[in-house]
């Protein structure tokens, strides 16, 4: 009998080996799951402008450059900084009292700006279509008169010089480096419908009005916030259609 069983696996021991292998695999699966769960989540929010990213935080005026959006050439508006500063001095920013607050309703694709409970302006916007616009409470941390934004890939690639009136916002979950902003858009006119790669697009005239009103009060072509000059609160809510 002993001889006969030599070289052949006993059915019971085969089953036991299989069960052991299964248990070990399950253990490995759970260990991997634990490691995945412990990984930080912040890396999942990619930069809004995947190519230009932090370069977009710098002032960049390129009046002779050609832009590209939806595989189409677009001509950016020319920006004259000298006349801009004169305009700013005339316009001023005072509108009333109370804290300034910008609300972006993704469902309605609408922006409203309040000082206290007084409505300052209302405008159609275009939020994320190819990449979602993050929701939550944010604050503007830098205002840039114009910059270049580039990103996307394939048919959705874009490269846009002279993006006007840019107001970058952030919070703890969506850090400054992710480059989400409110800004003017000259390459499309489909406001009221999602059309961006995560930013909040506005008509240039609306973006200018908001830029001149929002804190920090504009002091130059690029304005940073500091502990004494906080940026206006931005609340983004709802769900894009």
């Amino acid at each position, binding site marked *: 009998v002993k001889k006969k069983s030599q070289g052949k696996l006993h059915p019971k021991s085969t089953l036991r080996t299989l069960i*052991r292998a299964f248990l070990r695999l399950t253990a490995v699966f759970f260990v991997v799951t634990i490691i995945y769960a*412990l990984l930080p989540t912040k890396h999942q929010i990619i930069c809004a402008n995947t190519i230009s990213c932090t370069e977009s935080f710098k002032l960049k005026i390129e009046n002779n450059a050609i832009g590209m959006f939806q595989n189409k050439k677009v001509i950016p508006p020319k920006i004259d900084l000298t006349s801009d500063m004169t305009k700013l001095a005339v316009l001023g920013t005072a509108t009333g009292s109370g804290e300034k607050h910008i609300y972006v309703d993704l469902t309605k694709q609408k922006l409203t700006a309040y000082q206290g409970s007084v409505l300052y302006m209302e405008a159609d916007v275009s939020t994320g279509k190819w990449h979602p616009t993050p929701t*939550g409470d944010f604050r503007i941390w830098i205002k840039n008169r114009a910059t270049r934004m580039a990103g996307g890939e394939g048919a959705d690639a874009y490269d846009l010089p002279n993006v006007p009136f840019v107001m970058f916002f952030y919070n703890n979950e969506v850090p400054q480096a992710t480059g989400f902003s409110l800004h003017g858009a000259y390459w499309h006119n489909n406001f009221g419908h999602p059309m961006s790669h995560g930013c909040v697009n506005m008509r240039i005239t609306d973006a200018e009005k908001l830029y001149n009103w929002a804190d920090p009060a504009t002091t130059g072509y690029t304005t940073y916030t500091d502990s004494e000059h906080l940026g206006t609160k931005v609340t983004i809510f709802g769900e894009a259609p």
Partner: protein
Amino acid sequence: MITVRREIELLIFIFVAGIISMVLLSHKNATMSAQFSSPKLPNFVMSPLATPTPTPPSTQNTTVMSPDGSETLVMKKQVGQKSTSYSFSILTKATNTEKSLFMKTTPDTQNYELPANSWSPDSRFIFIKETTLQATNYYVLSTTDDSLNMDTNQVNIQTYFSGKYPNYSITDVTGWAAPDLIVVNTKTDTGGFLSFWFYVPNKSFIPLGTQFH
């Protein structure tokens, strides 16, 4: 005996690891959903005060500013007893001059609207909406002196579309995706939805993979 003990240990390890991973995963999901959940909003944002609708006067002016703010598209509507007259013109801010685009007198059952996204991003074209008892038409007009179609400065998107896609009907034309591309939303006879771009220079339609509804 040792093998049995090892198996029991392994089973306990798997059980504990399973519980820990479930707890961690649910915590992670909660954090992620909190990151993208809607924040609390004051009442005035969610339910703004309704503005009373004024009684329309017999002459109404509707305006839409060009993207750069330098020009204004003006639609003047004069309501008569049995017909309505429309005139469309462009007002240039810098020179304070007005250029007439076209005029039309229509029966009461026909009316025109200026969509908020009328202007093309480069201000070379505009589109307007016409509603009749039979159909809704969207016209693209050139704001320059360039002719768009057979020596006229306008194109009816509906006419071109129904000729090329008889099984689809236009539900909305929302605005401009680029200086010469208009977003056209449609639905099929079977209830499906498809968005197109209307390419103005060629008067052609480009079906889109993404819906723009």
